[in-house]
């Protein structure tokens, strides 16, 4: 305990270990065969004077998607059927959040530090904007995190970060097929003695590409023409099939 307090005091700013991070992909494109992707976050930990301390540092990586405001509805039983009853608004919910660490988070940092750096699913700042009671707010927040987890959009895994010889680290984060598109950030935290010693951030873009991008854009920019094309296509397909089968019958 004493050591934990002393080390950061003794070690000056220049004495802190540094991170040399990288990611396997800066751009992830969603094409027709996209069934998810795997992002590799890797790099090196540089200790001052090149000497490894007795207690090696730990690594936590976080991949976070674009944040959006959203409305969460909660179902309740009314007159024998389940209908949406209460709701809560959140001002900024990341569309994707995956965290991986070399050891369980609670062994690495205390609650305050975890809250400051938003480490862990329980520490996300979702900014609830309704004036609900704290109890209700906590219930809604837990419900939202659970929902996102089940959809594979929120994930927390420990022990998935490998550190080789205390110097080289690598972490794999899997990205499911239904991720939202937009700008992502990949953050790497170097944690030693319960303190965040270094943070490195890399920007990543996930976007639809090729035909998928064209279709999604067309549906938004030219909705009328898009609808017309959809109708014509389905008429043609229906007609072609019926004509084809008639020839086949003869």
């Amino acid at each position, binding site marked *: 305990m004493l050591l934990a307090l002393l080390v950061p005091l003794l070690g000056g700013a220049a004495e802190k270990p540094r991170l040399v991070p990288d990611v396997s992909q800066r751009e992830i494109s969603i094409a027709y*065969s996209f069934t998810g992707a795997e992002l590799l976050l890797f790099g090196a930990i540089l200790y001052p004077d090149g000497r490894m301390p007795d207690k090696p540092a730990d690594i936590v990586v976080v991949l976070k998607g674009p944040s959006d405001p959203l*409305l969460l*509805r909660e*179902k309740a039983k009314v007159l*024998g059927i389940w209908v949406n009853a209460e709701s809560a608004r959140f001002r900024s919910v990341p569309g994707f959040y995956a965290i991986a660490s070399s050891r369980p988070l609670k062994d690495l940092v205390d609650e305050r530090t975890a809250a400051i750096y938003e480490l862990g699913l329980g520490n996300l700042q979702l900014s609830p904007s309704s004036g609900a009671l704290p109890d209700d707010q906590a219930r809604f927040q837990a419900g939202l995190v659970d929902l996102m987890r089940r959809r594979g959009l929120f994930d927390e895994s420990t022990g998935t970060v490998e550190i080789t010889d205390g110097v080289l680290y690598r972490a794999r984060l899997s990205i499911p097929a239904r991720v939202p598109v937009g700008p992502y950030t990949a953050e790497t935290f170097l944690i030693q003695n319960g303190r965040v010693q270094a943070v490195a951030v890399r920007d990543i873009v996930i976007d639809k590409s090729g035909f998928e991008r064209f279709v999604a854009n067309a549906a938004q920019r030219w*909705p009328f023409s898009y609808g017309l094309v959809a109708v014509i296509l389905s*008429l043609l*397909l229906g007609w072609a*099939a*019926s004509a084809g089968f008639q020839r086949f019958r003869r």
Partner: protein
Amino acid sequence: MHIYLPIAGLSVNVLVIVGLGGVVGLLSGMFGVGGGFLTTPLLIFYGIPPTVAVASSATQITGASVSGVLAHTGRQGVDFRMGTVMVVGGVAGSFAGAGIFRLLQESGQIDTVIALVYVILLGGIGLLMAKEAAASIGALRSGRPAPASGRRHHPLIASLPMRWRFYRSGLYISPLAPLALGFLTGVLTVTLGVGGGFIMVPAMIYMLGMSTRVVVGTSLFQILFVTAVTTMVHAVTTQAVDIVLAGLLLVGSVTGAQIGARMAAKTRPEWLRLFLALIVLGVALRMALGLGWRPDEIYSVEPL
């Protein structure tokens, strides 16, 4: 084999979607119904967002009804005058339905309402069909003809003003009745993603008293146009039409429909109707259970 759906925003197994279209097509070929009432719930069950399922199912029905309309036109099975009146009602209904859809979406009750309406409609029609089919199978067994209905069309319809002649349907009635029927199915198409044939066909036979020779063709004619307009309405308002999803469903359903039509030719129509009634009741029961049971996930999100 997976493929990414650009509007739904997730990747699906191609074979599952084509197979789903095939099963629905098989049913539509056998029974002459569009099958939208099966497509939409099954797509939602597979994980497609409800709005995308409803919108793309409407697009698929347009393509699936083309061959039926062509075939029925060829054998004089479409009453174009009646069909046009119903299309006009249907187009008005689909615009009204878009407004209702938006209101329900804002209040957060769209899923519940969709499920409730399905339970009531499918349950009611399934029971009626099962009763009718069982009666005619009973009559067939005992060798006596089924008791014929006494009246031609509903007395309420006969009392409506401004009568028109519909030659092919063999009717002299007010166009207001088919107009209202078209309107109702238009609302259902936009909100539920169904063609509405399962409501229209019985209503045309038992309420309007149309000649059965033109009922299916005219109903398909109306469905073709109303689902096309519905696709446009959804493309412009909800932007939820997924061309790739609709195309995959269509590939399956047009193939299934041809096979279904051949199977139907070998089976007695009374038994076909009983099977269809049981399927319809099964879907209704499944949805009713879904409403009453505690759902897996009681939370749902919606972007602001």
